[in-house]
């Protein structure tokens, strides 16, 4: 019998992190929610086999692979999303949140793969080899994609303007 309680505990413990990664990847709350549901559903189907191994790594891989599949199916250029929804806050916090949102807007202008690599490297804190394994690409591709993505962020109008403020 499947360990439903164990899976529920796992999903609850990791749900926020997964949802945050999905929002960073997709730039859209609705798609992020769908992506997380899909990743957890696929993990649930294999829960008995993976729960004693490394289910966090498994569901992360499913999340990023499912996103890549979704993106390839669309066959169209991605458009930068608007700033993620946020509530206004007073004082220094407002400035901090504005800075964060500018960076996220710049992030949304990257390709899906560039975003995925940056999220895995700098949000999930994976090394290059682990990032390559999660995405099913070569380590060299991780390095070049990361370098290219950071280069784009450095010259992003969103961030250049913020530096000039």
């Amino acid at each position, binding site marked *: 019998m499947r360990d*439903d309680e164990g*899976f*529920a505990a796992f*999903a*609850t413990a990791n*749900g*926020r*992190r997964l*949802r*945050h990664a999905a*929002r*960073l990847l997709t730039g859209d709350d609705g798609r992020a929610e769908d992506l*997380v*549901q*899909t990743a*957890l*559903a*696929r993990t*649930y*189907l*294999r829960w008995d*086999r*993976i729960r004693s*191994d*490394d289910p966090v*790594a*498994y569901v992360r*891989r*499913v999340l990023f*692979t*499912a996103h890549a*599949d979704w993106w*390839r*199916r669309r066959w169209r250029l991605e458009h930068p999303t608007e700033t*993620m*929804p*946020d*509530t206004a806050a007073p004082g220094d916090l407002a400035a901090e949140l504005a*800075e*964060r949102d500018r*960076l*996220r807007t710049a*992030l949304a202008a990257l390709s899906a793969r560039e975003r995925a690599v*940056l*999220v895995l490297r*700098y*949000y999930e804190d994976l090394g290059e080899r682990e990032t390559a394994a999660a995405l*099913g690409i070569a380590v060299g591709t991780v390095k070049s994609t990361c370098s290219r993505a*950071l280069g784009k*962020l*450095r010259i992003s109008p969103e961030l250049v303007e913020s530096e000039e403020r």
Partner: protein
Amino acid sequence: MTEHLRAALSDDRDTPAGVDVEAVRTRAGRLRRGRWAVAGVAALTAVAIAVPVVLLRPDPAPPAPSAPVTAAGQAAPACPDTAPAAPAAPAPATGPLVGFAPTGGLLCGYLADQTTTMADGPLGAVTRLTAAQARALAAVIDAASGPDGELGCTDELALPYTLQFAGAGRLVTLRVQPYGCGEVSDGSRVVLAAKDPAFLAVVKDLPTYAACPPRLNDPRTVFTEPAGDALLPADTVRLVVCGYVDGAPAEEVRTARVVETREARRYVTEFDASPSVDDLACTAERGSPVILVTAVTPTGTKRVVGEVGNCRTLSDGTRSVRNEALVRSLWELTQR
């Protein structure tokens, strides 16, 4: 920059917590039912032979053996329809797993889920091993030793396949896990052989799992098997269908659609009864959809290509038949 980026990415103050676990389970149920889709083909009024709508429920496949089969006197190998389960508590083998010099064998690969790369689908790739290949693999396996201590290997990329060795009236079926520690098992005993360079030298170019090729630039390159006596083998247990347009994958990227036994046999019968055509008399339109169909039998596979646009034919490179309705119905499977 990177610390800035790290801080900005990690700021999840506006990310809601909580997961609807019931919704996840419901979605998992839908995924399980729909993954290996049976052909649901609507009856076409213009077609003399109608194929009924079939619910998304797989035909019962031949039961997979829960343990590998070793049958004295059984000389003809046949792939199990699903990969044997990993042994629960394998013991290191103290004697050879194969134990004879095979005269041939089969390598049986299973359909991989594109999202997770787990190959836990039904049989989808069958390769006949030559005597030399079978002997070389058997020699490596029999020379290999079992794990020294408890195994701590990950099989996150679970792409197991089956090897069958036949000869001198004997048949041995082994489960191979190419990742992790490279375990080869007979169901109760295990050796670490699948990462041995001599082992890899034999299997490196053989299909150890089944999936839609990433591109189909020139359909003529897929015709690697002998054409045989019929367009599709009579003992087909399943059709694996992949769709392409101008060489690129169709709508559902690289997700194979599967037609199971009863419906597959109907396609085989109707295609084999369809009128032959001269392929050279028809020019395929640029941009017209193309389907790659792999007919899977327990002892081999055969690939045919269907042109869905102008020609509406199915061909194995040697013979072509025309059946617009059936070719289109297979293409429509790839669009779901």
